[in-house]
């Protein structure tokens, strides 16, 4: 994630024009993964397996978008850290909340 672009200075946008290719490829990849996800749901596998697969696949999509489309790969590491502080805290809090509410003591009153 260090910035190779520093070496390439000025109007030499050599690596930039190849970005077009990368972007299109990634977009295709994202579309394909989305397709796989949709298929996954209907596969007759164990629930935990499908859920894990879905979570992993979405994470992959997520990472591709932030590292390529959002240039984290080419930007200063600091941007990545900054965003991941929020991301990790957000996922952590979400996880904690879901866990708390799954505890027996927290079940809503049966109706």
């Amino acid at each position, binding site marked *: 994630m260090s910035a190779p672009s520093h070496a390439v200075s000025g109007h030499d946008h050599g690596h930039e024009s190849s970005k077009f290719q990368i972007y299109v490829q990634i977009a295709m990849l994202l579309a394909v993964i989305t397709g796989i996800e949709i298929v996954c749901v209907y596969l007759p596998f164990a629930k935990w397996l499908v859920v894990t697969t879905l979570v992993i696949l979405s994470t992959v999509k997520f990472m591709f978008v932030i590292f390529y489309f959002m240039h984290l790969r080419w930007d200063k590491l600091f941007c990545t850290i900054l965003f991941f502080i929020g991301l990790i805290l957000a996922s952590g809090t979400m996880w904690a909340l879901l866990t708390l509410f799954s505890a027996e003591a*927290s*079940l*809503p*009153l*049966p109706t």
Partner: protein
Amino acid sequence: MFNSLPPLARWGRAFFALASITLLSGCDFNFWRMDGHQSTMVVDGSVARQQLEVFYVTCWVSLVVFVIVAAVLAYAMIKFRARNEADEHAEPPPQGHGNPLIELGLIGASVLSLVIIAVPTLKAIWSTYDVPEAEKKDAYEVTATAYQWWFRFEYPSEIAAVNASGAKAPVIAANELVIPAGRPIRINLRTVDVIHSFWVPKLAGKVDMIPNRANFIFVRADKPGYFWGQCAEFCGDSHAVMRFRVVALDKKEFAEWVEQQGQLARNVAATAVATTTTPQFTALRKFAQNEAGITDKFEVNPLESWRTKQLPEKDENTALIAKGRQLFSAKTCIACHSIRGHDGAGVSAPDLTHVGSRTTIAAGLLENNSQQLRRWIRDPGSVKPGNKMAKAYLENKISLNDEEQVALVAYLESLK
């Protein structure tokens, strides 16, 4: 330990001495003794005791750490203080930046002190949470339901007739929870409106009553006694006056009480038709806003006061009672209250079947005597702002004249 006052609290005393003479007439000094009716320091229940023990651990650890740190701080403040002009303008001291070893040592020491606190904390979290497995069989179950601003207590294991035709349902009481002493009690905590909290400091710490949530609390009273409780979660206008009582009885007395509560409401035969008798009653004295509803006499031995309440009043005016019973329907009280065996099947208000046998009314706020009963039914809103009964008075245009008040009071008092 609280006898050794910090110097600042002594200042407080000085203030107190200055002004108390004029302002405080009935003041007592258990500020330092910490043994009020709702004290968490002088307790009568096993759960509260465990919680108190944890508190003492935290308190002592904190105190020790505080004394050490404070001593060093005080020493530094005195020792390194610039004493005069020359000192202040002297060459600055060496510009040292820190000492990792000291830092690590102190971190280690802090962690250690925290471990001392953590261990009993963890133990008590498990032991105070629920009735211990071994005693589950013996545990007694009650359901407490909070309403704005009173409590309803239901005894699922005590089934009794609810009307003359013999339909059965669990025994229901309000605002005074009677439990067997010595036994573990598991109280289901429910609420019908907002969040409330069930707190009887001498028996156990609080647990909240939260809508759509099946909370419960475990308490055990060491011995028979009379305990003060209080709703401990802000629940609207009259949260402050949402109180209740717990009465713990020995086995035999508890059984008697259950037996009596299972009865339908007491019938007092009218000897004459009420309209012809002129009732004798003392005038209602004026009550100040927020005036206390509990007398000192009651305080002396509340459990004894409770016992007296179980027996019928001495000279009952039967005519008056009969008229009160009529009025209870006529004034639409029955829409909200129920009196098993008499009229009324309302469920949105305290069950009044045995209201006469309770020591307090209006959720522990007022002592249950004729003056306070009258004060309540005359204008419930002035006692408990925003209260549903006052709202009903407005909506149904209920107003009671002196005579009616007295009749109703007589009737209510007869319900033992």
